[in-house]
């Protein structure tokens, strides 16, 4: 039982289950998943579907945070990718041509990758603190997105583009399939290949990893690029779901939600270890919270209050200092610092 309680994902799972149970009480048929016109429908499917962009952004953010960095620019990248794709599509003669849409998507993702490389170079090449390096793109990128859309909301009418965020494929929403593919790919790259180990070692101690022959710079640039690519895909999803690009509001504050998702999922902001499963759980908790607030009839204005409450509770429960002070009153003077203990543990 204690082993179960101490599992890293115990608290996130417990909170998600509690939120779902709350829904069961307040909403009829919450867990019913129906088949309509060959598509799956239901509240649970909706949670995953609307949470898909957040899960994607959080996945990228997890790897960045594992290197003890942070990427504040994801919200701007979301806006830029959506804006550029919509601009290219709205310039097409035939907005439904698959080739044209693919080209637009390709260009938007290429720009996202370029922005990620820029972040990576600032952090790894010049050695600027991640929070500041990405703050530059966060501020300037929002302006860039508005520059692309000329301050307007660019609308498109393209069914192939609509598929990315709002369409269905094999009875499932297409966005869920994208998330599953990206998640599987990330899990394979980081847990079956050495990349995950490299990321964790750079996060644990960048200098020591460099001395032991790991190209810390290469790893850093890779994770920032991956994070921006994830944000770019999420941006396409968000703009495709509403068939328009809003340079001002698309992806606003998604970086904060993503960081929360990562932290709720048990990845320490100090870096050195990460949990992809935890991040997905964290993102689902945030999305379920939003859905719950709507479904139990609490005014939606209070979403932020609940978010603040949940964040505080989860962070306090995960804080070694808090657990020590509240649950075991005595602190042994000679015990090794809990922070260093957490850092060396490499999760499977």
């Amino acid at each position: 039982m204690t082993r179960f309680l101490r599992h890293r994902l115990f608290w996130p799972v417990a909170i998600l289950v509690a939120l779902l149970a709350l829904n069961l009480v307040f909403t009829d048929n919450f867990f019913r998943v129906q088949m309509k016109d060959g598509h799956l429908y239901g509240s649970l499917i909706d949670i995953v579907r609307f949470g898909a962009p957040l899960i994607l952004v959080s996945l990228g953010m997890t790897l960045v945070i594992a290197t003890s960095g942070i990427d504040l620019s994801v919200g701007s990248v979301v806006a830029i990718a959506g804006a550029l794709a919509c601009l290219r599509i709205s310039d097409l003669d035939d907005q439904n041509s698959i080739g044209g849409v693919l080209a637009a998507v390709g260009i938007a993702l290429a720009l996202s990758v370029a922005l990620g490389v820029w972040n990576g170079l600032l952090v790894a090449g010049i050695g600027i603190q991640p929070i500041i390096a990405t703050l530059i793109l966060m501020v300037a990128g929002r302006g860039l997105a508005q520059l692309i859309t000329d301050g307007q909301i660019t609308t498109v009418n393209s069914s192939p583009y609509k598929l990315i965020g709002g369409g269905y494929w094999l009875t499932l929403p297409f966005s869920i399939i994208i998330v599953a593919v990206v998640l599987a790919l990330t899990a394979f790259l980081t847990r079956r290949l050495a990349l995950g180990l490299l990321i964790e070692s750079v996060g644990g101690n960048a200098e020591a990893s460099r001395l032991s022959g790991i190209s810390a710079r290469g790893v850093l640039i890779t994770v920032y690029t991956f994070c921006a690519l994830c944000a770019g895909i999420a941006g396409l999803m968000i703009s495709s779901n509403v068939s328009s690009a809003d340079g001002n509001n698309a992806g606003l504050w998604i970086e904060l939600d993503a960081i929360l998702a990562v932290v709720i999922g048990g990845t320490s902001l100090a870096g050195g270890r990460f949990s992809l499963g935890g991040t997905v759980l964290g993102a689902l908790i945030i999305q379920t919270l939003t859905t719950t607030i709507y479904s139990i009839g609490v005014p939606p204005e209070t979403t932020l209050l609940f978010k603040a409450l949940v964040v505080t509770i989860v962070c306090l429960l995960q804080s070694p200092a808090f657990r020590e002070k509240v649950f075991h009153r005595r602190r042994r003077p000679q015990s090794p610092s809990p922070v260093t203990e957490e850092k060396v543990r490499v999760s499977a």
Partner: protein
Amino acid sequence: MTSVTGLLDLRRTVPQKYIPVMVTAGLFVAMFVAGGIRYEGFATGQIVLNVFIDNAFLLVVAVGMTFVILTGGIDLSVGSVVGLSTMVSASLLKDGWPAFGVMALVLVIGAVLGLGMGAIIHYFEIQPFIVTLAGMFLARGLCYTISTDSIPIENATFTAIAQTRVDLGGDMWVSPSVLIALVVVLAAAYVLHYTRLGRNVYATGGSEQSALLMGLPVARTKIAVYTVSGFCSALGGLLFAFYSLSGYGLSAVGMELDAIAAVVIGGTLLTGGSGYLLGTVLGVLVLGLIQTIISFEGTLSSWWTKIFIGLLLFAFILLQRLITARRR
């Protein structure tokens, strides 16, 4: 080329720690002169005073942020606390509370929020980034709980403060908010440079471990800076309420970024322990002047402001990087 050789000469005569502040000051003067040459009616004292008038609240908020950043922390909640302050003021004034009672209550709310966040950050060892993020959600959520609409302020005291002009002679004037902001700046500069608390702030930011080993009250200092920041945000919120004469849950969204940008452009290191309040004042002025120039230009759209601020941030961070790299 003269500017480069000038800089090189400077380095020999001026201690390196003053260079970022001097560069910011130089930038401000250069922007002002360039604006004066390019636009008619730009090079007047009132333009500078207008920058102060339009950014008095940001100045106060940035002062609080400087304290936090000097200890190596960060406070993301300031924008929301500004919004909450305008909201609390507007709704209580509508219910007929006396103006000064409302002001006192708002300041207490801000300070208590900061105190709470500081205590959680220190005692439970949670990252400032996350704790103040939760604080940001909390304050913004409270705003929406009060009301989602904009509430006008019709209280006589508030409107009187909003409409008063303090004449400085020669057709120049400032608002009372500017005077309040300047008092805050002077008080903060005194605290930072001439009191124990100020020295502790720099020491904690330089190295928390060393400060602890030296026997400095790190816990008290860390909690104090977040309290100061909360108080400054609440005061900034009051000034914002004077400026806009309304309370709105969405006001000051993103102000934390402006405040952080002002502090960074002012030459304060984000790792803590190094920087000056004067730099922050200059940082706010530079941000304000960018907006003024863009509005004088007329054809440039508002989003260029963000792009310019991003470029400036980049340039200044690069400069800081060069200076700290050379010091090693």
